[in-house]
């Protein structure tokens, strides 16, 4: 919403092509980059000409993160008509992510969905006829980010965030009630109590941040769905993937596993397998949840894995699935290839034969070929991370970090013997930041809390 602060995001698709661009836009884009960029020629970007490219390194705590090319485009001659810096990173997805984080730490905030385009428009860069399109972008992307950020949030994380927020709100309400009604409510000895609470909150937020750094707040990855008729072997296949050492199942310590998805890593490529709980329990995904739901799942997915029972003839279910996946990125896995097979690849009409792999989930046959195929598709740029989702993750991480910093400020204020009303300013900031993580706004929370918890009155 804020029009002049500096925003940043990854501007390229999140694939493993090795190169990725981080775009920074806003008044302080150049200053912020100067904080983290060391040019080989020892030049400060503040002093360079517009539309020039500079070679150097992104440095954090005296440690080189990546070798980069930085382009500087000064306002108003840029896409957004603001100062724009683009950092071309070379180190792949993980490093790109790290560099982006460094940019945030240096003072930028994660861009909202469609925000670069929005700014470009608001600053008069984009033609008027495109206004409607911009509105659509904002809308669809916001909706997307909203539903996805909340949906993708691990259940356990959202429970934890809610719990911390509740705790913070209680403290604010207590302080505020005492300020508004000093004769009824006393803050005596409250500081000692609050410092214990902030210590606890800080450690909890730290844990969330650590798990976020491991990609566990949101499981960013290739959204994958497994389809197949009853008894085709979907769950055996999944179990084979999970059961092996290389498969990582995300789980935050001490919490229950999110039933909605499994996160599996193959050659470092992250797959989010959707709705697996359902698949694993029922086996009969098409039958149980219906063709319509399968279609929706497939539509939302970046990749469909179609499991065919090669030991039985194709039936109506299989044809329906073939129809669904035709226009998607897919792999067809001819399961039970260790048994006598009756289905030939050419039977699966309309499907690219190079996408068909013979496997046996039970005997662990062909899994390595499957994995190589995934690698090939990923590095070939055929399947991508959803960059929007990745950004959402970044944004939420950033919000948690902001909350952490705010609570640190509260601790500081307590140590500096500031009056209590100063505590609630930063507590409120923390509360708001955490609200963004779980998609809740503040509205009248505070006033309601004050009245429900504390007896005030003349």
């Amino acid at each position: 919403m804020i029009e002049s602060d500096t925003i940043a995001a990854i501007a390229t698709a999140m694939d493993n092509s090795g190169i990725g661009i981080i775009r920074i836009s806003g008044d302080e884009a150049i200053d912020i980059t100067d904080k983290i960029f060391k040019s080989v020629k020892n030049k400060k970007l503040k002093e360079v000409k517009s539309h020039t490219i500079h070679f150097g390194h992104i440095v954090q705590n005296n440690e080189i993160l990546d070798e980069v090319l930085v382009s500087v485009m000064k306002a108003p001659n840029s896409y957004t008509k603001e100062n724009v810096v683009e950092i071309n990173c070379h180190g792949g997805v993980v490093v790109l992510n790290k560099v982006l984080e460094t940019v945030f730490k240096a003072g930028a905030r994660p861009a909202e969905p469609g925000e670069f385009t929005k700014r470009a428009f608001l600053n008069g860069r984009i033609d008027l006829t495109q206004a409607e399109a911009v509105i659509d972008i904002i809308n669809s992307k916001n909706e997307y980010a909203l539903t996805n950020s909340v949906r993708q949030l691990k259940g356990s994380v959202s429970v934890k965030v809610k719990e911390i927020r509740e705790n913070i709100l209680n403290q604010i309400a207590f302080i505020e009630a005492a300020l508004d009604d000093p004769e009824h409510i006393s803050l005596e000895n409250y500081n000692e109590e609050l410092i214990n609470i902030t210590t606890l909150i800080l450690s909890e937020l730290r844990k969330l941040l650590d798990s976020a750094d491991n990609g566990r707040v949101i499981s960013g990855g290739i959204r994958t769905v497994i389809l197949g008729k009853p008894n085709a072997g979907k769950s055996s296949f999944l179990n084979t993937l999970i059961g092996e050492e290389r498969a990582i199942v995300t789980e935050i310590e001490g919490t229950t596993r999110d039933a909605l998805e499994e996160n599996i890593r193959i050659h470092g490529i992250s797959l989010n397998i959707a709705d697996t709980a359902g698949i694993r329990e029922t086996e009969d995904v098409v039958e149980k949840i219906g063709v319509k739901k399968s279609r929706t799942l497939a539509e939302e997915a970046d990749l469909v894995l179609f499991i065919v029972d090669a030991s039985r003839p194709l039936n109506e279910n299989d044809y329906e699935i073939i129809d669904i996946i035709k226009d998607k990125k897919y792999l067809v896995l001819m399961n039970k290839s260790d048994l006598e097979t009756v289905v030939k690849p050419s039977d699966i009409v309309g499907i690219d034969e190079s996408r068909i792999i013979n496997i046996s989930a039970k005997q662990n046959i062909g899994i390595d070929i499957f994995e190589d195929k995934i690698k090939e598709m990923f590095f070939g740029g055929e399947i991508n991370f959803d960059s929007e989702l990745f950004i959402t993750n970044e944004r939420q991480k950033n919000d948690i970090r902001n909350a952490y910093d705010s609570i640190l400020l509260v601790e500081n204020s307590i140590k500096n013997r500031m009056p209590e009303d100063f505590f609630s300013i930063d507590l409120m900031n923390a509360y708001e930041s955490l609200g963004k993580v779980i998609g809740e706004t503040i509205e009248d929370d505070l006033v309601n809390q004050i009245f429900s918890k504390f007896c005030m009155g003349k």
Partner: protein
Amino acid sequence: MSGYVEQKYDVLVVGAGHAGCEAALASARLGLNTIMFTVSVDSIALMPCNPNIGGSSKGHLVREIDALGGEMGKNIDKTFIQSKMLNLSKGPAVHSLRAQADKKDYSTQMRITLENTDNLTIRQAEITDLIVDDGKIVGAKTYSGATYYVKAVILCTGTYLKARCIYGDVSNPTGPNGLQAANHLTDSLKRLGIEMYRFKTGTPARVDKRSIDFTKMEEQKGDEIVIPFSFSTDKDSIQKDQISCWLTYTNEDTHKIIKDNIDRSPLFSGMIEGTGPRYCPSIEDKVIKFADKNKHQVFIEPEGLDTNEMYLGGMSSSLPEDVQYAMYKTVQGLENVKIVRNAYAIEYDCINPRQLLPTLEFKGIKGLFCGGQFNGSSGYEEAAAQGIIAGINAALEVLGKEQIVIDRSQGYIGVLIDDLVTKENHEPYRMMTSRAEYRLLLRQDNADLRLTHIGHKAGLVSDEVFERVEKKRKLIDKEIERLENTPIGANQEVQDFLVKYESAPLKTGSNLAELIRRPELDYEKLKEIDVDRPLLESDIVEQVNINIKYDGYIKRQLKQVEQFKKLEGKKLDADFDYATVSGLRREAMQKLNLYKPLSLGQASRITGVSPADISVLLVYLSTKKHNS
């Protein structure tokens, strides 16, 4: 019907309570021929509930009213009998003045002021009808049939519209204190399409001082040095002997009586339908809702100097008379209490304030302004704050000048009015410091620096006062600059000074401002090592100290205000149809059409409007700008 017709007045004010008084004074002082109606001239500036002015955040409002050129601060300075600065142990933003008033004197002094104000006429009569022509107010009618043709009307009807006072199964169709209710105006308002709410509030019993055993209570004294509310009151002129208040507590016996008789409360029988405020609950509310508390405070406050009546703060109630006697008598020190006036709940009509512009003018009816409890607020100070704004704006409209709006970053008055006209409000609205998001900037100590220029521009503040405040501002800035730029070496004298105040010794040179920022030091203490400082008034020193000490926080809030102002600056058309904006969510579209916000900032505060909707509006606005 008499058919008397009067045409010489410009502005007509309905009601002579705290809102009505400020509205009428502002209008008359701006040179408009003003007439103020009241159902009883004897009840001008009546305090029908608590006998005090100010308190947390309300004290801020009084100071702001004063800075704008209002009367409340001056009037309480004349008539207080005890004064206290609350929250002194906390930060400067929440310090708040509260004074006990001599109610009768408060009323009398305000009446004297009104009666001695040029252009102001006081008239006892009930206004029953408004005359609106083509979306514009043109006059009003009284119960006796007289018609007053005017250019603007300000409604400040307080708790009088269709008022009903209730305790137990007794229901009196009167306003507060048994005064005549105004039973006709509501119907006229409804005919104009105005949406009404029904709210309730309550007050405790008044008891005879001679029947109280004060030896069983804790004495509550005023401050040794009284600080005036008004920036123009001379501090030395108001130091005087003060009257004490007294503190006692309810106990388990009190609570048992209440619980045993709760079924006799009119709230339970359904006799009261109005919505009451959560922040001043009746004692029965407190006992039921906070069942784990075994005692509640009761403040015994004098109603005035020459009366025996005492106010039982904290024990408002609508229980039957016999239960009131029984429960009050359980309270320590009230064993033999004699009631002078019963506690009661009062129900009254007010409006849904969403129908108002931030100028306090009705959206659909030009020239019709309103303030106070009529707008769904509660409290004398909240009323007066709206009264002065409504008065100023009604006058400015008649004069054809630009009206004033105080925004949320300028004052509590801005927060109050913005909340009323923008947010859904289902109970009498009370000001609270937590409602002010920029409260570090909106302190009671700097209300003059924040708002005097607005009062001056409107014409209510004299050039002399305005220049005094501007001079003060310059002196403050100059002194802050001097402190920021005066280096301090790490010499022996300085180190000794720091040791004395248990402050860490300097390793390298610093400046005076840096030292003031240390929690254990302040401007006063630094005097010994700051020999060249100019001689400054205490109010300037106070500003310098606060601004330097809390500099970091203040700067952060100023940054937030900057962002806030950007959205406030993006204006929206009041009669724009949001259904024509594609891309708005349905709920947002409906809410925006209901509230018709005047700026993007206001739109963003409406419940149900999301940041994405604001983005859509932003793009839309931009499109319009390009097109035109």
